[in-house]
């Protein structure tokens, strides 16, 4: 318990520092691109919004840095991420809350599938080393090296454009109303298949190879031999003894890998015009919508932190040593 509290405190400190960097970024970069972007909208915003933007980015304001910093935090705690400049007067939080569920569903589901499948395959490959499953290794190596978006392009070409098997544009079909009805859910799943396959194919190799290598090391440990000498069943030795220990590094990597998967999914979304965070971020960048960019940053950062903490919880559950050291 003490260990977990310590980790929690640690994540809070990390979150504070990350958000502070988020605050500092537009003020540190030379050239003042923000100023130039905001100048283009001169006169289009209401005076209140203009003042808020000035405080948010430290442009055109005489307020001290401390006042700006205070303003930044008080706005954050009110859940106010500012106003989008490209889709004025929509609030950034509104845009993000519309896009985020798509990304979380897509990335969440495909990551869990990829992790589970990859880890199981890794265990099996290590267990039957020298067997036929070894052929999966070079294939997975190739797949992990393929750029996400390029794989997406190929999948679109083959299964979308040529074969017409699956839809490949946007998150759900035209003429389907957004909401909890079967037509929408079915359409959303059909539209999610190709992007999900892209993410799973690109990320599965990491889990598989990592798990296989840890498994190989663990299988040569003495306690695994003892377990076999005691006459335990293969399954028990494989999962309870070897895999439980070998999975720890993979699990530690899960939350961290999530950051990479999020990045990869951003690109995947762009290929498929998926209505998630990735497309929103690209639009924000191309239209120099700095409030939206900062908001997206913040949200992705917080989600990755929460995922890290979740992985820590699992880690503690699996590894008694962490409970002892605390």
């Amino acid at each position, binding site marked *: 318990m003490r260990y977990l509290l310590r980790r929690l405190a*640690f994540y809070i400190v*990390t979150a504070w*520092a990350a958000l502070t960097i*988020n605050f500092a970024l*537009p003020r540190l*970069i030379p050239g003042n*691109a923000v100023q130039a972007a905001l100048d283009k909208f001169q006169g289009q915003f209401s005076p209140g919004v203009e003042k808020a933007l000035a405080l948010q980015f430290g442009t055109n304001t005489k307020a001290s840095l401390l006042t700006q910093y205070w303003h930044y935090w008080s706005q954050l705690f009110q859940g106010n991420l500012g106003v989008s400049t490209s889709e004025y007067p929509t609030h950034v939080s509104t845009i993000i809350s519309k896009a985020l569920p798509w990304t979380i569903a897509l990335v969440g589901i495909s990551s869990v599938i990829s992790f589970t499948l990859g880890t199981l395959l890794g265990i099996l490959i290590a*267990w039957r*080393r*020298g*067997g036929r499953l070894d052929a999966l290794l*070079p294939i997975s*190596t190739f797949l*992990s*090296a*393929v*750029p996400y*978006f*390029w794989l997406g*392009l190929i999948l*679109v*070409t083959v299964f979308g*454009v040529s074969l017409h098997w699956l839809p490949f544009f946007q998150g759900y079909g035209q003429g389907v109303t957004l909401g909890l009805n079967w037509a929408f859910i079915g359409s959303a799943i059909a539209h999610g298949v190709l992007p999900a396959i892209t993410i799973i194919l690109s990320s599965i190799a990491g889990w598989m190879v990592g798990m296989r*290598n840890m498994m*190989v*090391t663990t*299988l*040569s*440990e*003495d*306690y695994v*031999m*003892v*377990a*076999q*000498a*005691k006459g335990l069943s293969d399954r028990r030795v494989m999962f*309870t003894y070897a895999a*439980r220990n070998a999975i720890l*590094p993979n699990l530690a*990597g899960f939350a*961290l890998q999530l950051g*990479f998967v*999020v*990045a990869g999914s*951003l*690109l995947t979304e*762009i290929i498929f015009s998926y209505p998630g965070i990735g497309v929103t*971020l*690209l639009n924000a*960048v191309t239209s120099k919508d700095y409030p939206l*960019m900062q908001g*997206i*940053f913040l949200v*992705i*950062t917080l989600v*990755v*932190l929460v995922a*890290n903490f979740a992985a820590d919880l699992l880690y503690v559950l699996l590894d*008694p040593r962490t409970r002892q050291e605390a």
Partner: protein
Amino acid sequence: MSVDTPTQPSATGDNARPAGPRAASLRRRRTRPARRRRFSRKTYVGFGLLAFFILMAIFGPIAAPYDPSAAVGPSLVGPSSAHLLGTTQNSQDVLSQLLVGARTTLLVGFLAGLIATALSIVFGVTAGYLGGWGDESLSLVANLFLVIPALPLLIVLTSYLPGAGPLTTAVVISATGWAWGARVLRAQTLSIRNRDYIVAAKISGERTWRIVLFEILPNEAAVVASSFLFTVLFAILTQVALDFLGLVNVSGSWTWGTMLYWAQNDQALSVGAWWWFVPPGLAVALVGTGLALANFGLDELIDPRLRSAGLTRRSDAKLVRQGFTVVHRRPDAAATAHAPTGGGFTEVRLRANGNGRSEPVAATIGGAPEADAHLASQAADSAEVDTQAGAGNPTGVRADAVPQRQRDDAASEGRLG
């Protein structure tokens, strides 16, 4: 661990070095003929691929038949003898673009990989070894770079810095890409730090820098190598992504990413110009494959247990996964590795947590006569099978008190073997 000679550790408590059979087995292992093949075939494929693309990066711009930016032929034609990989919509030669683009793409990747790996070693190993507040503060720095998702950060950074060159790209990518390696190295160092041979090195008075450089780091070589591989891969993929999104100067310099950007922008997909967008992505994937396969080879060189080459016999594979080193004797060609049970001798490391200190104790199971098994009372009170998962059931395992020297042997064999 070799089991080709069943041995029986003396449980009588005398300090004599375990004689005869064990020593002989060690000697035999040393004089065993060298492996015929050091690497598996996929390792050669990996190094071959890497060498091919590195040569391409060096000589590509010289060997390119045309100027990659110039209109040199008909628009959008497939592969022909004049244009081996066809032409783009602007009548540029795809092959020339591929050859010229290799240099910048690989340069950025390897440069970023080198910088990031150096950073991750410094941060990761130091954090893992120091522990305490040093660990906390270094991990905090690593976590900062970790929680700020690299690609969005890079996207925003490049939007702040229009027209960033390849060198800037490499530095920025390495600044965002080192934290993952550092975290993995830290975890590995943490798990190695308390191992018996490190404790032994500390007790024997080795200096900290020596322990870190010569005891810990060599055992992390595989992790460092794989971290380097993945960082280079990450760097190449990230750079290609940034170029593909059109966030860098796309019209001036040719990379595989800018090729994909133009292919996507000029609708290569919908006109079916596969020769335009397939080669650059395939090249990226093949470079990555080469890196990964070469990394497997490095892993196998460092850790023989990972080798699957030569494990053709099913029985061998089975033995290896049970943790045995299979030794085929020369005179009779048949596999003579002994069965693990039935009179065989198996060593188990037990951990006695008497005073909060772990102490390696060897134990025998299976072949030990009942009379020989006596438990040192202190160890017995707190002895647990060190399965590291707490899943082990201590019953059925008998612990013997064994002389110190022999314990060290057992410990080092179990760990390093």
